């Protein structure tokens, strides 16, 4: 699917773009209740006004959304789309690698995420290592270059992983075929995973100290050689200094407690526990540490450590004071996170607003971007999703998606473009077939056999 042309036109000069007024919609603000019939004024990419009545500037483009529902753009706290590689699985600490280096703005999953109402995603490194690579928060600005998709100002993250995945790659069965002589990768147990994390942060502290010593020497006017920059340890120092968020893949209650204790001991915070399927067992401890939890609604039993899960997980953790979000971890599930949120009303009795919070303001808070996105409030980014029905109904469809006040998905436009793309494709196929049929101008002359 090509980027929407109208969006491109807006993009050319966003500041000069005319204001937009979305009228007559049911507005689910998430943080300020629901406006049954209201309007939103968008100016310069921001929400300028929200209410039953708003100013309609003379030059405004008016979008009639009668009978439709506007909610904040959905935020996915755990995604692996839009990147050319996900796992640097060869080592147990791969913090030197970065998703930002391999962003792929041509990934069709971005457009499909838009079609599911998602406007922001936390793109994570995989879970092959105890300490994984650096992560990036993206807005789904389909059609833009990689760096224009990065959520400007969002704090960068890093992936940790506990349990089966990081220890599995150390199991001889995890080796490439025929590599009998390859020594297995450490660790092979949960104890080993803890040790890898402790070892890495011990090294990071020494590294941090070496730079402090160097800087002190220089400030005293002494001759000194700067320490070697170590791209593996630099992000861990940032974690220690609170400049990088830790997103930790985990399942079992025991390993969750282990990680929180290791973090407390070394003096850093776990920002979110990802998957955290047994989080309901240790919700109090999670809340005490201040970690958020980003889980699935009802996806489990795909491996041993995912057996003790329950669909009430999100609701129980919410009631125990944990900041909870629902994520996709999948390009497919990403397209219906609204359905996932709705399930928490059946399992655990969350309110409509609480359910919507799990995919909007809560993940925004977890990623520390709630000053910009996650709810419909004046002053926030105009990242909005318009559904034809209530988004918590699984009969609802996404009609339009705005990011920074620009239209990035329009269902009608998409449907109209499909035959155009089909024609274009057929033309290219025919052209290629024709070329293959014709002897090429430079065809090799062969002597008769």
């Amino acid at each position: 699917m090509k980027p929407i042309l109208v969006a491109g036109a807006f993009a050319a000069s966003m500041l000069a773009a005319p204001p937009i007024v979305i009228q007559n919609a049911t507005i689910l603000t998430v943080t300020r209740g629901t406006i049954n019939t209201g309007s939103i004024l968008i100016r310069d990419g921001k929400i300028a006004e929200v209410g039953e009545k708003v100013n309609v500037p003379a030059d405004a483009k008016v979008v009639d959304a009668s009978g439709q529902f506007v909610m904040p753009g959905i935020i996915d706290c755990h995604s692996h789309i839009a990147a050319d590689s996900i796992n640097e699985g060869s080592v147990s600490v791969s913090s030197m690698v970065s998703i930002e280096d391999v962003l792929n703005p041509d990934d069709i999953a971005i457009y499909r995420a838009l079609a599911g109402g998602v406007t922001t995603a936390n793109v994570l490194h995989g879970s092959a290592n105890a300490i994984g690579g650096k992560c990036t928060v993206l807005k789904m600005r389909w059609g833009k270059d990689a760096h224009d998709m990065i959520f400007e100002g969002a704090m960068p993250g890093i992936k940790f992983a506990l349990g089966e995945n990081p220890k599995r790659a150390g199991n001889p069965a995890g080796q490439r075929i025929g590599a009998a002589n390859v020594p297995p990768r450490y660790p092979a147990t949960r104890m080993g995973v803890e040790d890898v994390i402790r070892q890495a942060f011990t090294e990071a502290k020494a590294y941090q100290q070496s730079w402090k010593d160097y800087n002190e020497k220089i400030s005293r006017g002494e001759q000194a050689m700067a320490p070697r920059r170590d791209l593996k340890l630099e992000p861990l120092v940032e974690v220690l200094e609170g400049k990088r968020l830790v997103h930790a893949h985990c399942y079992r209650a025991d390993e969750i407690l282990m990680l929180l204790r290791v973090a407390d001991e070394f003096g850093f915070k776990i920002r979110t526990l990802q998957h955290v399927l047994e989080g309901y067992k240790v919700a109090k401890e999670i809340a005490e540490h201040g970690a958020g939890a980003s889980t699935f609604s009802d996806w489990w039993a795909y491996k041993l450590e995912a057996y003790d899960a329950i669909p009430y997980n999100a609701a129980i953790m919410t009631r125990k004071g944990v900041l909870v979000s629902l994520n996709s971890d999948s390009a497919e599930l990403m397209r219906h996170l609204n359905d996932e949120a709705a399930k928490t009303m059946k399992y655990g009795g969350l309110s409509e607003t609480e359910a919507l919070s799990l995919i909007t303001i809560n993940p925004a808070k977890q990623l520390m971007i709630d000053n910009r996105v996650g709810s419909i409030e004046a002053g926030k980014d105009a990242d909005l999703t318009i559904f034809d029905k209530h988004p918590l109904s699984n009969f609802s469809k996404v009609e339009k998606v705005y990011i920074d006040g620009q239209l990035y998905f329009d269902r009608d436009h998409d449907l109209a473009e499909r035959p155009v793309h089909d024609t274009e494709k057929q033309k290219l196929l025919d052209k290629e077939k024709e070329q293959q049929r014709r002897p090429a101008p430079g065809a090799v002359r062969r002597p008769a056999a």
Partner: protein
Amino acid sequence: MKRFSILPLIAGCALFAGAPTTIAIHNARVIPVSGPAIPRGNVILRNGLIEAVGADVALPADAWVIEGDGLTVYPGLIDALSTFGIPEAAPAVPTGGGRGGVPAQPAQPTQATPAVPVNPPARGPEDRPYTTSWMRAADLIRPADRQIESARAEGFTTAVTYPPRGIFAGQGAIIDLAGEKAGDMVVAENAGQFVTFTTSPGFGGGFPNSLMGVIAYVRQVYLDAEHYRLAKQFYNAHARGTPRPDYDRALEGMLDSPRVLLPARRRIDVDRLLRLADELHLKALLYGLPEGYRSADLLKKANAAVLVSLRWPDKARDSDPDEIDTLNVLELRDQAPSTPAILAKNGVKFALYSGGIDRRADLIRAIQRALAAGLSEDEALRAMTLSPAEIYGVADRLGSIEKGKIANLIVTKGDLFQERAEIKYVFVDGIKFEPVEEPLPPGARPDTPTGPTADGPRGAQQ
């Protein structure tokens, strides 16, 4: 393995010994590339250099005269990225040995194969995986390589040739495509460091096993090289009382390389590699560029030169006929040959390279596709002569027919880029070669070359 349906064999005229040292091409059409065409002029070659060129240049009394009626003289073509003359390279080694690393290869291969691999999987950048940055193509050249002959028959007189394997594969050399000894052939021994994005297989094969691992490795190595340079400088200034820095041949190789060649297929590759080069202050030369037609704005903004492979992406011969490619893939195949025209229109400096196409007919066909997509013949010729010379900083000796430059020329009957044109003579360092067609060897089957990738030289790992 290469096979030729027609092997245009180059028969030297009495080859090196006894070849005339002064040659005059008389009354030919001359295309100097650096200036306007000379409809009827003389080119004088002496001692391997161009002594004079022009309409009114007198023929020296001692010159061997070639009558140029009906002939056209062009500068010899330069293949801007190749593996000509490089012995079939050993597979890249997972650990190159760095600080505390192990040697890449045993110095003396023993009879008994060791039970365990010599190189354990790399555990991180410190083990210098897939790195032979210290290797110099100039030290590896084999003048007897048959690729050199076939390249000459295509009209190439010069090639930039690289060790092909590994993340940091080694340093390229600019060579003239004739000579008895490697030393005769080398024009410049340090063309740049050749990089491919090689990854280890699976999770058990060592670092790096992903593209982002490779990029992180590249970044760490350049930071290490800079630190190494400073550490050596500091040590030399304060040797007493300072622990000496460890010698690291991988970093020595980096510091020796005046530029780095990075593989770029898609627009996103161009984007991310230009950013990386900017961040690390690298003089980067992107190669491949089948999606260059989408990338001109980025290249222009960065004022970057590129090497464009003439091996345009094609539908695989054995692809499933029922599998319909996506619109993006179809577009890439349709648009890729328009890359040179679009780069030319946008003022982006580029050179074309053969990408391992080793038959003249195939080369002409590939060039014709670029011409059909809007490239002018002059632009195409420049992209295979003067532009690569400029990109590699050797335009003072190669790339055009000008007084004082190396006497690398091709003399054709007909326009060079027409399939029917005949290459009559090839001059390398002033020595004349005549391509002759060799009959198909008995039992040989015409075949297309296998193995080379769309954007690498023959045999390079991508």
